[in-house]
């Protein structure tokens, strides 16, 4: 029997700091054959990324890695750093997590792809450039002009393709893909994963796919290994694992996947409810002349009291720009925003206007000041927009924490000490602190694990039901949309192309863009995930 491509035995990963030690992975064992795709699935903090880093040898100095990691029988952990470096990029390649930050902003992307070849002296000069262009084409960027661009000139999907090209250009034996598509929307996600799967299968490359998304894993991997708090609790054929999950943690992952068929958490707002927020003919372009990109092109929208309007569309369709215009963070070139029939003042927002429309952003880590305690952050809008005394503010803080179901002790902790779900609750509490009428959630749950996501969505639905809050919900996730939005608007190229009650639009999409979004939902094939439960006829029609 030949040795497997990758063999991990009794891997233990321990992070040490001056004060404490934390074991991230304990006695983990894995095997991966040539041409096989293995998905490592688990919630954040389960240790899946730590395993990926250990395989590549990218752990930091304070991390202790023990056990055995073999590539084609060769022990990686014991070898000198020089030899390890020779394998990195050439034999084991990484497709990193965040396409936005994983490329050097000051170098042309073609050079960054060719760098792998230059570093390992596999090719130089024009030959390296040629191979880089070929790899970019294989990764789905056939236009050679793109190689001359800088990362900021590319979209998220294009950047992720660049990273894939850089990973495959040296024809490695093993590709470690760490959440390669989590930052992308579903249609882009699908084409990227298709490409990655095809490229590795064609060349007999092993693929270690690290993901929190069980639906993606089931659809893309031959085998799935489930991690729970640093231990591998389940390992088997992909279909078998999702069809009959043996371990409680796998069952939890399967159970908390938002389904397109799940019961919505909100009821539609009554038709006679007054319109709280209205946008008319909103248009906005970036840049001048022929280089200008139109982000919004005559968008009308009306949000009634207690209504939850979901805005979906691919990245670049203008969703986020719409949110920013509604929040008053961007000024439209044309059109206007009205609150209760009163137009936004010409010269910027009044305080009253700002108080009544509050944001919840995607990334709670970067939208909270890391040096201020959570209680301070929650009351920030109160201090800025309302005149209240100290005692009153303290009472308000307790009330808010209660509303978002956080313990009152959390107020004195720093954002760095909280989990992603807790932080997003803090962000919601902050938005609620000034008693707004409209909440603008921009991908507010996209950065969260599925189980946490479900809890935050439940909270948002509850606030909507009980307080009559209106929500403008920007999302790329149709399952999330179905759960918390009674109305949906589909955007394409800065326009709303389809609008209506969520259930009706998802059941019978009229516009091709809506159909494309539905088709790209992962899981339809594997029989779980958001796409699960769609009838074959429906899926075909969709």
């Amino acid at each position, binding site marked *: 029997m030949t040795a497997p491509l990758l063999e991990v035995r009794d891997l233990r990963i321990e992070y040490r700091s001056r004060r404490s030690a934390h074991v991230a992975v304990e006695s983990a064992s894995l095997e991966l054959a040539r041409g096989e795709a293995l998905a490592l699935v688990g919630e954040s903090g389960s240790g899946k990324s730590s395993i990926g880093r250990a395989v*590549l040898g*990218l752990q930091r100095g304070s991390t202790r890695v023990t056990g055995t990691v073999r590539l084609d029988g060769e022990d990686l952990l014991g070898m000198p750093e020089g030899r390890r*470096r*020779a*394998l*990195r*990029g*050439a034999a084991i*390649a*990484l497709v*990193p*997590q*965040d396409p*936005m*930050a*994983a*490329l*050097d*902003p*000051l*170098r042309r992307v073609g050079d960054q792809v060719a*760098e*792998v070849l230059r*570093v*390992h002296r596999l090719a130089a000069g024009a030959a390296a450039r040629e191979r880089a262009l070929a790899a970019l084409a294989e990764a789905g960027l056939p236009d050679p002009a793109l190689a001359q661009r*800088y990362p*900021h*000139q*590319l*979209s*998220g*999907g*294009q950047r992720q393709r660049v*990273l894939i090209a*850089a990973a495959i250009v040296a024809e490695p034996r093993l590709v470690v893909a760490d959440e390669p598509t989590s930052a992308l929307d579903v249609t882009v996600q699908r084409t990227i994963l298709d490409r990655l799967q095809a490229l590795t299968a064609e060349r007999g490359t092993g693929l270690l796919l690290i993901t929190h998304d069980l639906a993606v894993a089931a659809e893309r991997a031959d085998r799935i290994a489930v991690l729970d708090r640093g231990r591998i609790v389940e390992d088997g054929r992909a279909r078998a694992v999702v069809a009959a999950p043996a371990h409680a943690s796998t069952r939890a992952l399967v159970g908390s996947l938002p389904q397109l068929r799940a019961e919505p958490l909100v009821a539609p707002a009554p038709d006679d409810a007054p319109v709280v927020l209205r946008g008319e003919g909103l248009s906005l372009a*970036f*840049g*001048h002349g022929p280089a200008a*990109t139109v*982000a919004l092109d005559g968008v009308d929208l009306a949000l009634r009291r207690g209504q939850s309007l979901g805005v979906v569309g691919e*990245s*670049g369709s*203008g969703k*986020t*720009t719409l949110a*920013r215009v509604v929040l008053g*963070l*961007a000024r439209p070139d044309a059109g206007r925003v009205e609150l209760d029939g009163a137009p936004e003042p010409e010269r910027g927002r009044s305080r009253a206007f700002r108080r009544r429309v509050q944001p919840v952003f995607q990334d709670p880590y970067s939208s909270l000041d890391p040096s201020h305690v959570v209680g301070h952050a929650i009351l920030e809008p109160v201090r800025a927009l309302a005149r209240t005394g100290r005692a009153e503010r303290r009472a308000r803080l307790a009330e808010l924490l209660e509303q978002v179901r956080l313990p009152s002790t959390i107020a004195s902790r720093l954002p760095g000490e909280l989990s992603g779900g807790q932080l997003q609750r803090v962000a919601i509490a902050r938005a609620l602190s000034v008693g707004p009428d409209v909440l603008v959630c921009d991908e507010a749950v996209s950065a969260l694990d599925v189980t946490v996501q479900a809890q935050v969505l439940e909270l948002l639905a509850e606030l909507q039901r009980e307080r009559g809050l209106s929500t403008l919900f920007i999302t790329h996730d149709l399952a999330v949309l179905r759960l918390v939005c009674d109305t949906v608007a589909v955007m394409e190229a800065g326009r709303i192309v389809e609008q209506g009650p969520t259930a009706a639009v998802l059941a019978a999409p009229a516009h091709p863009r809506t159909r494309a979004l539905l088709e790209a939902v992962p899981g339809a094939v594997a029989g779980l995930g958001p796409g699960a439960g769609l009838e074959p006829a429906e899926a075909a029609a969709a």
Partner: protein
Amino acid sequence: MTRYVLRRLGHALVVLWGAVTLSFLVVQLIPGDPARIMLGGGASGGEGAGAADDGQVAALRTELGLDRPVLAQYAAYLVRVVTLDWGTSFAKRQPVTDVIASGLESTLQLGAASIALTVVLGMLFGLGGVLLPGRWVRSAFQSITVLGIAVPSFWLAILLLQVFSFGLGWFPAFGAGSPAALVLPALTLALLSAGTLGQLLTRGIEDGLREPYADTARARGLSRAGVVLRHVLRNASLPVFTMVGMLIGSILSGATIVETIYGRPGVGNLFVVAVQARDFPLIQALVVLTGGVFVLVTLVVDIAYRWIDPRVVEPDRREGARRPRERAGAAA
């Protein structure tokens, strides 16, 4: 691009106008009579001063235009600035423009040499702080560069003179005749700012090494040094570049001390002479010159920045400038 340059140029002119106005106000706001002060009396004049009689004071007031209304003086002053007519230096008995021209060459040499040295030393200090082998060695090296920031310039100058001039006799102690005479003054100025620059660079590189793009580069098989030299250094250099611009401005004021100690006849030295002699026309010209250098350097840095960092876009909408990601997303 052209629009951007034009707008920056507009900003520069406004700042320059501010500097000119300030230099005008310097004379206006002095308590007492500027003419009497220039003639060596106390601000109050009075019996005890006795240095200048009232006739001389009146004549000088007329010559300087101080007897006219303030706005008329200001208008005349602006015209003189534009036509580069600074009048006569009181202390040197020469036209101010000639006096400054005589010192400018020496100071330009000193400035250019010290900036070049600062950048080279700053790079060495900065890279040494992250690339030397061993954590202990690196932090020791970093501590040494801090000394450069802490030491006063006159003390450093005297130390260098003691060792290299009086002790080893490698370089002349005074004068500005030869290139060798340039070494010690330039080194004095450079060592002071190179410490700061090195610190800034070290910090930037350490932060950069924690960025995801540095991880990606390591995953491609680059060594730590390779990651620093090929990727992180350039990113970390952006704030350093801005700082070099500010240093060029501060070199002029640093030159005052260094030129005095090394006995170089430069612009910094002129500042001392002008202030000591209460030579208002010369002081005014020097204030405008310093302001002008600052403005020019800032302008060059701003324009060059766009060339170094491709992400800097025309800030026609603050949106686009602040959130290049979103813009790129919208473009796709």
